[in-house]
C-alpha cells in the first residue's frame, strides 16, 4: 500500500530529477539567443533575444547554408531508412518463421555481432570502400543498411514476429499461400508498428552516427549537418551564440520524431531488452 506521504515524496523526487536532467537543454535554448558577452552571465534568458543568431548561423559558411547540409543528411537518411526497414523485415521473417539448416547457428552469430566492437571492422571496410572508389560518397554510409539494417533491428523484429500466432500462417498455408505469400500478406502487415520503430531508430542513430560521417565524407558540398557543425566548432573565433543556435536546430528532426512517436521508442527498447 502506498501512503500519501510516499506518493508526494516520489513526485517531488521525480520532478526535481526531471528538471535537473532537462536543465542543460533549457539553458541551451536561452544561450542560443544570447550575445557573446552575455553568454558569460549565469542568466537563463537573454536581456534582448538575438534571433539573428539563428539566421546568421544558418548562413555561417560562405558557400552553403544549413539548408544544403540538411538536404544532404535527409538524402542519406532516405537511403538508410529504406534499406533498413526493407531488409530487416525480410531477414527477420527468415529467422523468425522459417526452418532451415543451421538456423540456430546463424542466429547466434547474428546476436554475437551485436557485441562486436565496430573498430575491428572499420579499417578493412575503409580499405575496401577506398579501393572501390566510394570514399567521399554516401555509399559507405548507406550501403551497410541494405544488409539487414543491423543485428539489433533484426533481433527486434524477430522477437515481434515470434509473438504473432502461428495459426495465421497455418490458415494461409491451407489456403494455398507459399512462404513468400505468407510474408507479404500476413507477416508484413502485422509487423508495421515494429517497422515504424526500426525506421525511427535508424533515422536517429544515423543522424548521430558521427564516426562514419567524419570517416567517409570529406568535401564540404557533401557535408551532413553533423560535419557542418564540426566545421563550425573548429573555426578560430567561434561565434558561440550562433553555434549553439545551429546545434539546437540540428537536433530538431530527432526531437520532433521522438515527441510524436514516443510509444514506439519505449516499446522498441523494452522488447529487445527483455525477451532475449
Amino acid at each position, binding site marked *: *500500500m502506498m501512503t500519501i506521504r510516499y506518493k508526494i515524496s*516520489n513526485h517531488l523526487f*521525480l*520532478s526535481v*530529477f*526531471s528538471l535537473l*536532467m*532537462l536543465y*542543460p*537543454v533549457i539553458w541551451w535554448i536561452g*544561450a542560443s539567443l544570447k550575445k557573446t558577452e552575455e*553568454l*558569460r552571465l*549565469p542568466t537563463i534568458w537573454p536581456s534582448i533575444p538575438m534571433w539573428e543568431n539563428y539566421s546568421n548561423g544558418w548562413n555561417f559558411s560562405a558557400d552553403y547554408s544549413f539548408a544544403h547540409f540538411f538536404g544532404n543528411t535527409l538524402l542519406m537518411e532516405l537511403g538508410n531508412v529504406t534499406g533498413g526497414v526493407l531488409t530487416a523485415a*525480410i*531477414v527477420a521473417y527468415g*529467422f523468425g518463421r*522459417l*526452418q*532451415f*539448416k543451421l538456423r540456430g547457428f*546463424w542466429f547466434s*552469430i547474428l546476436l554475437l555481432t551485436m*557485441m562486436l*566492437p565496430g*573498430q*575491428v*571492422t*572499420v*579499417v*578493412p*571496410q*575503409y580499405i*575496401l570502400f577506398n579501393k572501390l572508389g566510394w570514399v567521399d560518397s554516401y555509399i559507405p554510409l548507406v550501403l551497410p543498411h541494405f*544488409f*539487414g539494417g543491423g543485428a539489433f533491428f533484426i533481433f527486434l523484429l524477430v522477437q515481434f514476429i515470434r509473438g504473432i500466432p502461428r495459426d495465421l500462417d497455418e490458415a494461409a498455408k491451407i489456403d494455398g499461400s507459399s512462404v*513468400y505469400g505468407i510474408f507479404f500478406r500476413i507477416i508484413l502487415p502485422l509487423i508495421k508498428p515494429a517497422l515504424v520503430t526500426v525506421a525511427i531508430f535508424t533515422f*536517429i542513430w544515423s*543522424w*548521430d552516427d*558521427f*564516426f562514419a560521417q*567524419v570517416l567517409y565524407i570529406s568535401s564540404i558540398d557533401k557535408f551532413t549537418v*553533423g560535419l557542418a*557543425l*564540426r566545421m563550425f*566548432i573548429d573555426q578560430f573565433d567561434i561565434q*558561440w551564440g550562433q553555434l*549553439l543556435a545551429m*546545434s539546437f536546430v*540540428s537536433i530538431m528532426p530527432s*526531437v520532433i520524431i521522438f*515527441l510524436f512517436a*514516443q510509444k514506439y*521508442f*519505449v516499446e522498441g*527498447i*523494452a522488447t529487445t*531488452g*527483455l525477451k532475449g
Partner: protein
Amino acid sequence: MGTAETLTQAPHTKAARTSLRKRKNKEETNLAGYIFIAPWLIGFLLLTLWPIAQSFYLSFTEYSLLEAPVWTGTDNYANIFRNDDTFTKSLSVTFIFVLISVPLKLFFSLLVAMALSKNIRGMNVYRTAIYFPSLIGGSIAVAALWRNMFGLEGYVNQVLSWFGIQGVGWITNPDTALGTLILLNTWQFGSTMVIFLAGLKQIPQELYESASVDGAGRFRKFVSITLPMLSPVMFFNLVLGVIGSFQTFTSAFIITKGGPINSTYVYALFLYEKAFKHYQMGYASALAWILLVIVAVLTALNFLASRYWVFYESDGGRAK
C-alpha cells in the same frame, strides 16, 4: 540415410510418398530460409567476417594504404606492449571511463525506474524528460553544448561563482576533463532506464503482496524480490553498457580532442587517429584486435560471474 532409403524404396507406399513430400518441403523451406536471410548473410560475410579476418592479417603488417602491406610479424604487438606509452595511457583512461560511468548509469537508471514504476500520474511526462538527454546526448550538437558549459567562462563556473567557488577550466584541466565526459555519458541513462522499467513491470505483483502479508518492509522487498527478479535485466544492461562504453568516441573527439595531456584520449579515438590521421593501418588493426580480445574477455567474465548473481525463474527458483 534418408536419401538412400527413398532411392531404394519405390515411392508407391503412402508412407514413402509423404516422406518424399516432406523432404521436398524441407528443401524448399531450406532454400526459402536462405533467400530471406540472404541480405544479412551477404552483409555479414562481406562487411563483418571478411574484414575481421583481414584486420587480423593486417595486424601483422605495416600498411599505409598507398603501398602494399609489408609483413612484419608480431612487431606491431611488440611495439604496442613494450614501447607505446600512449597505448597504456589510453587503455587506462578508457578503463576508468568504463568503471565509473557504467555503474553510475546502472544506479541512476534503476533508481529512477523504481520511482516511475509505481503507476503514478504524469508518468509519461517524467519518462519523456528523463529519456530526452539519451535521445540527443550522442550528437555533435550536445558535444558543442558541453564544451561551452564546462569551459573556463562557461555556465558551470558562473553558477559556482555564486557560491564563491573559483571554478577551473573543466575541459582544459587534465584532472577534470575525463570527469566532464563521464558526466555527459551518465546523463544519457534513458535507454537503460526504459529497459529496467519494462523489467519491473514484469515482476508479478503477488510476490510483493504475499511479502507484505509476511510483514516484509520496503527495503526487504527490494532486496528479496526486486533485485533477484530484475537481475537478468541488470545483466543485459551491464554487458551492453560495458561494450558500449569501451567504444566511446564522439564526445572525446569533439569536446576535448583527447587532451589535455591525453587525459581523455579514449581507446576508440587513439585507434581512429592511428588509422586515419597517421595512416598506420597495420598498427591500428593490431589495436583493434587487442580491443576485441579485451571486450571478449570482459564479456566472458561477465557471463561467468552471472552464475552467482543472476536469477532465472525458469530454473525452478534456483540461481544458476
